[in-house]
């Protein structure tokens, strides 16, 4: 069973520029797919299209995006809203930027939970605290009482992951979730995400330009360039025996990959 399936997807923006050309690949259940590519390759656009969160003027011009076999593009606004955050969740590069800067984490977290399940504020708060401790955040109460800008980048990202995972979604879309973090924190966040996949069975699509993160986390790797999918395959095949010329170039361009730049965790 595939959780997510891109079928011949093209995305165009208002200025007539096609950001994604005829991309097809599938995300099997429980698997992690890394979408790698340089900036402007259309990798973020692709997962935003799945969430129905393309920036203004962007639209899917052809193809289908299947979520558990159903075409998301045929969903009504309310249908897609109700699965966002519960069935499929998303995290971003700078988590703090994607929270209201003038409200504390707690109310925003509780608001999110109560959008999906009917619980009291207190119960929602308890779910939030449990989830935050699960992400190994010390002093979850303090996090709930903090404004986003009062937390470090790593804490914010882990809080955002906790928020995204609290409804036990089947799919987590992660848009450059580690790029704004320093290397040690990066490794922690990667490990947390791997652990969540193990515990909850959530499939993850991670968009990254970091080949190290991709090779560390992914079961499958999709390589994109200028809106085209250049290569899609199992991790070992893409890393060790890349078929596409661009993938080969990209792997060669990161020689440090073999040394310390690669995310070493264990």
């Amino acid at each position, binding site marked *: 069973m595939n959780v997510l399936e891109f079928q011949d997807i093209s995305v165009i923006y208002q200025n007539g520029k096609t950001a994604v050309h005829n991309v097809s690949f599938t995300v099997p259940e429980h698997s992690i797919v890394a979408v790698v590519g340089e900036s402007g390759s259309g990798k973020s656009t692709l997962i935003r299209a799945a*969430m129905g*969160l393309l*920036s203004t003027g962007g639209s899917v011009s052809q193809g289908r995006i299947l979520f558990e076999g159903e075409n998301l593009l045929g969903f009504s*606004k309310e249908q897609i*809203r*109700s*699965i*966002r*955050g*519960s069935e499929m*969740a*998303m995290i*971003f590069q*700078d988590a703090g*930027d*994607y*929270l*209201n*800067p*003038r*409200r504390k984490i707690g109310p*925003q977290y509780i*608001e*999110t939970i109560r*959008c*999906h399940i009917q619980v009291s504020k207190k119960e929602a708060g308890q779910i939030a605290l449990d989830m935050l401790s699960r992400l190994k955040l010390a002093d979850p109460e303090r996090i709930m009482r903090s*404004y986003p*800008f*009062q937390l470090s980048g790593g804490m914010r990202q882990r809080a955002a992951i906790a*928020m*995204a995972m609290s409804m036990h979604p089947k799919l987590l879309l992660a848009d450059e979730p580690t790029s704004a973090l320093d290397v040690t924190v990066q490794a922690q966040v990667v490990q947390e995400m791997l652990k969540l996949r193990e515990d909850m069975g959530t499939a993850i699509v991670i968009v990254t330009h970091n080949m190290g993160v991709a090779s560390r986390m992914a079961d499958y790797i999709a390589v994109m360039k200028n809106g085209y999918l250049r290569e899609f395959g199992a991790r070992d095949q893409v890393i060790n025996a890349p078929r596409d010329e661009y993938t080969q170039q990209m792997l060669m361009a990161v020689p440090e990959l073999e040394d310390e730049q690669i995310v070493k965790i264990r």
Partner: protein
Amino acid sequence: MIQYIAKRLVQLIAVLFGVTFLTFMITQAAPSDAAQMQYISMGTIPSEELLEQTREEMGLNDPVLVQYGRWLWNVLHGDLGTSTKFSESVLTQMSRKLPMTIELAAVSGVIMVLIAFPLGILSAVKKNKWIDYLIRFLSFFGISMPNFWLGLLLMYVFAVRLGWFHVVSTNDIAGIVLPVATLTIPMVCTYVRQIRAAVLEELNSNYVVGARSRGISERRIIFGHVLPNALLPIVTLIGLSVGHLLGGAAIIETLFSWQGIGNMVVEAIRVRDYPLIQGYVIWMAVIYVMVNLLVDIMYRLLDPQIRLRKKVD
């Protein structure tokens, strides 16, 4: 916070000195003679001796600085002086006119907010739909019209032609309609555009995308997140408008013979009624400084980033 407010109140004293001193100098520099104006306004042509005597009584022959010092001394003792035009104390005169201006300001302000906010939000949410175009088109009209012309137009149509209201405003509900409309229409048009811009800016921020990605409904996003945040820049503007309104809209008050403070000061300037002008200037300075202070306090309450950063300092 208390320290901050205290500091601002000390600043208020400095502002009051500066503003009253400057207006004193400027009005004195005007070429006409206050003593003469007083007699002319009473309809008599005084003899030169009588004028000289009156000037002496009014202290107009002293150096300007001495006059200012004398005025200041009296003010510090709670005496704002006597209006030369109305022959009663400035305080009595102002406390009679102020309620009229406050009434006009309050009604206009409330109506403005009640109309401008829904329209501004609607315009932003329905960006580039026909309703947005309509609102923007109409607001453009409203901004472009000078208010004295708008006032005359309303007066002509609704008072002269249709006869719904009196040309000279009366002291009942009907009397306030035209002045309020004249004050409110341009303000609504300005604010609709400002609110639209502020809401659009917030709608374009990433936290809105974040909230959508968590499945929060559009309604909650608009009313729970976007609107409270968009309020912040609007609060400053509203503060300025409140100052402006409480200063009395001189043109509109004169146009509709509304017995408010704006009308009063126009008359005071015409007859060189120095004590009354000075009284008005004090009122304006106090209002502006207080409104600014209130806006700053609101800002601190509404924006945790400012509030908490200051605490760290």
